[in-house]
């Protein structure tokens, strides 16, 4: 009987739960789903991480390659993120070129990397003006059950933490780069940005870590990215129901708490 009501009136069905301050999967309004992370699973990549946020599964693989540094910044390397939402993860994505959602998430990840200064691009330079590392970060969603932004940010962070770059020496005579795969060093991760997403319901209620169903019923979303010093790396509210400044501050407070939870998880790996 409940299943019938859910199909016919999904919003009313959901409101019944919200009135009791809980959600259909039994979580509180401010509770996250179980987060698990598994690193180093892709042996052919220089760094990788698999993150599961409830059912949402995202894998990030990082490959390091050589490139000439940009002309206007000869001592910097590149970090190129790309988020792929293939038809595998959800029926809403069709095969073909990246859709709007995938491009928007890719842009968000690129902005997080830029804003939080997670690694200094200067650290990726090998020889000023001649050779630098370019890190291709490919994030692929395997199972889309909402809150893709948080999962992708965490996967990227865990994968970057896992990257081991081989030592590079320039041969004096030939001028070619020689890679020593036996000597590897990890990346210097300067900041640990963590994203916390909220869905706005009926213009007033904020629920944390929405599932795909909740996102479809929501009237807006907010994502706050904080680093370990409590600085805001991104306040991403792409339209949707309007919020007051006080509600935004509630989101920021919850995001700072979430950062501590994720940092604890990161420290264990």
């Amino acid at each position: 009987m409940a299943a019938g009501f859910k199909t016919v009136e999904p919003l009313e069905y959901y409101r019944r739960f919200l009135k009791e301050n809980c959600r259909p999967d039994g979580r509180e309004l401010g509770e996250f789903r179980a987060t698990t992370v598994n690193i180093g699973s892709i042996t052919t990549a220089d760094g990788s991480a698999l993150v599961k946020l409830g059912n949402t599964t995202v894998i990030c693989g990082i490959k390091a390659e050589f490139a000439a540094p940009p002309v206007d910044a000869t001592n910097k390397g590149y970090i190129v993120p790309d988020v792929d939402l293939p038809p595998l993860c959800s029926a809403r994505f069709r095969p073909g070129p990246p859709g709007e959602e995938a491009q928007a998430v890719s842009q968000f990840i690129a902005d997080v990397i830029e804003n939080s200064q997670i690694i200094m691009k200067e650290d990726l330079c090998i020889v000023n003006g001649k050779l630098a590392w370019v890190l291709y970060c490919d994030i692929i969603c395997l199972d889309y059950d909402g809150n893709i932004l948080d999962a992708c940010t965490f996967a990227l962070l865990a994968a970057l933490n896992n990257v081991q770059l081989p030592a590079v020496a320039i041969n004096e005579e030939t001028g070619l780069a020689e890679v020593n795969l036996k000597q590897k060093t990890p990346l210097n991760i300067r900041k640990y940005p963590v994203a916390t997403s909220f869905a706005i319901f009926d213009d007033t209620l904020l629920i944390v870590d929405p599932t795909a169903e909740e996102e479809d019923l929501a009237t807006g979303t907010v994502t706050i990215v904080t680093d370990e010093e409590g600085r805001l790396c991104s306040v991403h509210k792409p339209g949707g129901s309007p919020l007051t400044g006080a509600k935004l501050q509630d989101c920021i407070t919850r995001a700072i708490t979430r950062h501590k939870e994720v940092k604890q998880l990161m420290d264990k790996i």
Partner: protein
Amino acid sequence: MGSEPEPGCALRPFAVEQGLLSRPDGSAAFVQGDTSVLAGVYGPAEVRSSRESPERAALDVLLRPKVGLPGVLERSREQMVRRACEAALLGELHPRSSVTLVLQVVSDAGSLLSCCLNAACLALLDAGLPLRSLFCGVTCALAPDGAVALDPSARQEKEARAVLTFAFESTEKRLLLSTTRGACSAKELHQCLALAQRATDTIFQFYRDSARRKFSKS
């Protein structure tokens, strides 16, 4: 018609021309300082069955940069403008139809996203589409020394430690859209938010004046 910035408000002078294009149902060219965006609205119109919704109008936003083809950044901005317009537009009054908003960047001298949002709102108004509220965009730049500049120029944006773009709706001045570049503290965010909210008074008054001007002449 144009307006001069009020002292203490620090917005660049802005101007709008509505109804300048003959083919779209509504159009507006919004100029903020040297940044200029042209917006055209087609709607409510025929919708493709894949996009059809029985509950509301399907809104599409296309953002064309001044040079080159639209890339990932444009797609991300299109999504933001679309979701901001969807919150303001009473799409429920036009089910199974589509509204297309096309934004063309004419010149970019800083605060581009807010200029796009302002042009979008005025174009929707010009098209006569039912709106829940008006909305406007304001950009703040946080200089490395902590000073806040509203409606920054391209140079101010480049030198800033953080650039925050907000959109507010007109009924209760609540936050409709927020996007930030660079990092800032929560206190600085609230400071910029308060300053931007106060600046929206000028912009909404300008909307009213331009609407009054438009209808009084004819």
